[in-house]
């Protein structure tokens, strides 16, 4: 019966849309509650500092090593292309602009989602599965205020710092390959970079991007953990969803932000 199949298909699509909208509404409410309950994260700053250590400091190694390699690859690939036009002296500006505008915030956010985002989701999901969240509620302590908000602000604070370090180490990687290994003139490498990179246009926009990515990745990780079914399978799926959704959100937001920031430059 074709009309039955069509009806079934339409119902499935309708159901999926309704579920999606409901989940989006639930996530927005959760995000709003997190913002409203954020007072304690600053009044009791030690809670937030502790989370900055776990999300930010513990992500440093992967961020620094990745940044160094990305900068080195940029140096190599950039030199290969620029020398065809006799512009190898512009290597410094290519490396710096690529990192500060795009690669730094985006790759740092993707690494942050896989390292810290997945850890946040798994931790909160397991706290729920082992009834720690329920225990907190029974002790008249709001888990959003005590558990979620400090982690949220730790993520938002850590992300731009990590992106800045990624870019700085990446520039150093480009310098190592371009100047030390290949022999591009050191003076032109740094002076071209200094001339090309604009503080307002490049650095500030890069920082804005990384703050937005930090908000998106941390909010997704927290929501997925808090919403995870309290089973091993539920936590596993939530962790996967955090990484996938965060990656898509970062790339999508990057496009939107780039359209507004660098249009016509």
């Amino acid at each position, binding site marked *: 019966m074709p009309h039955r199949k069509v009806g079934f298909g339409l119902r499935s699509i309708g159901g999926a849309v309704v579920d999606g909208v409901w989940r989006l509404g639930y996530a927005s409410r959760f995000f709003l509650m997190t913002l409203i309950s954020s007072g304690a994260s600053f009044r009791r700053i030690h809670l937030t500092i502790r989370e900055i250590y776990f999300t930010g400091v513990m992500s440093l190694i992967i961020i620094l090593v990745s940044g160094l390699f990305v900068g080195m690859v940029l140096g190599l690939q950039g030199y290969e292309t620029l020398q065809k036009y006799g512009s190898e002296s512009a290597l410094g500006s290519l490396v710096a602009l690529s990192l500060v505008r795009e690669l730094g915030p985006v790759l740092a956010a993707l690494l942050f989602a896989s390292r810290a985002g997945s850890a946040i989701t798994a931790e909160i999901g397991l706290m729920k599965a*082992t009834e720690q969240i329920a225990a907190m509620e029974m002790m*008249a302590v709001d888990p959003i205020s*005590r558990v979620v908000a400090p982690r949220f602000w730790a993520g938002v604070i850590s992300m731009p710092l990590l992106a800045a370090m990624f870019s700085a180490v990446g520039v150093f990687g480009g310098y190592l390959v371009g100047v030390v290994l290949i022999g591009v003139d050191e003076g032109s490498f740094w002076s071209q970079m200094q001339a090309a990179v604009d503080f307002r246009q490049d650095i500030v926009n890069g920082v804005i991007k990384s703050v937005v990515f930090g908000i998106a990745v941390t909010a997704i990780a927290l929501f997925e953990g808090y919403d995870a079914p309290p089973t091993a399978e539920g936590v596993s799926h939530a962790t996967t969803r955090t990484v996938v959704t965060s990656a898509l959100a970062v790339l999508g937001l990057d496009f939107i932000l780039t359209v507004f920031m660098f249009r016509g430059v």
Partner: protein
Amino acid sequence: MPAENLVEISDLNFTYGKRPILKGINMKIPRGKLVAIMGLSGCGKTTTLRLIGGALKPTTGSVKVAGKEVGGMDPEDLYKMRRKMGMLFQFGALFTDLSVYENVAFQMREHTDLPETVIRDLVMMKLHAVGLRGAHKLMPSELSGGMARRVALARAIALDPMLMMYDEPFAGLDPISLSVIGNLIRHLNDALGATSIIVTHDIQESLKIVDYVYFMAEGVVVAEGSAEDIKASKLPYVHQFVWGEIDGPVSFHYPSPPYRNDLLLESAHAA
């Protein structure tokens, strides 16, 4: 003068989606008493406990704690009431990122402005009461199941609650830990002047310590009385449960179609 009963449940119905979980429950928990809610897994015991703690709202009926309707409370009043409650979860639910000491101090830090020296003395007193003062530096991952349950008990009594709730406190414990936890529950109830509710299906241990028992099956209270009354009960549900009989009103088999159908014997014959 405070009412005689700390908890009063009247005509309580609770439905999860379209599935009725509790059907017309009535209970009275007198002050100072240790009352058990017993029954098979899935009979609605833990749901009743969650309704008393305000984690769920009744579909119809009333749950009153200290004369106040729990279902109608706003979050602020609910949190105020919960400060006078303690709950021991089935597997302790200790905060795994905090040490034993910090777990017990958690509520004191959250709800009081006590100086650190006073908090330290109080934590040590609570841990001494459960015999684990020497373990205050350990992390939850370093504790055995019985020790974790005792630390959770110390944490639950941190603010001297008027009502203690225990969700399956005996689950998965060795015989020694079982007796230790059982004795602690009775002793702490009497020493603190608290009222306690134990949700359990452990017959042997709980009947030794409780004052009164409500026996639930399929969402209703089917029997109530003292431990002796429950042991002597001739009601089929209670009898099967107390004596651990394999068959009775609670069938061994989950409802299923005729065995022949599932073994495909009919279709094999036809072929």
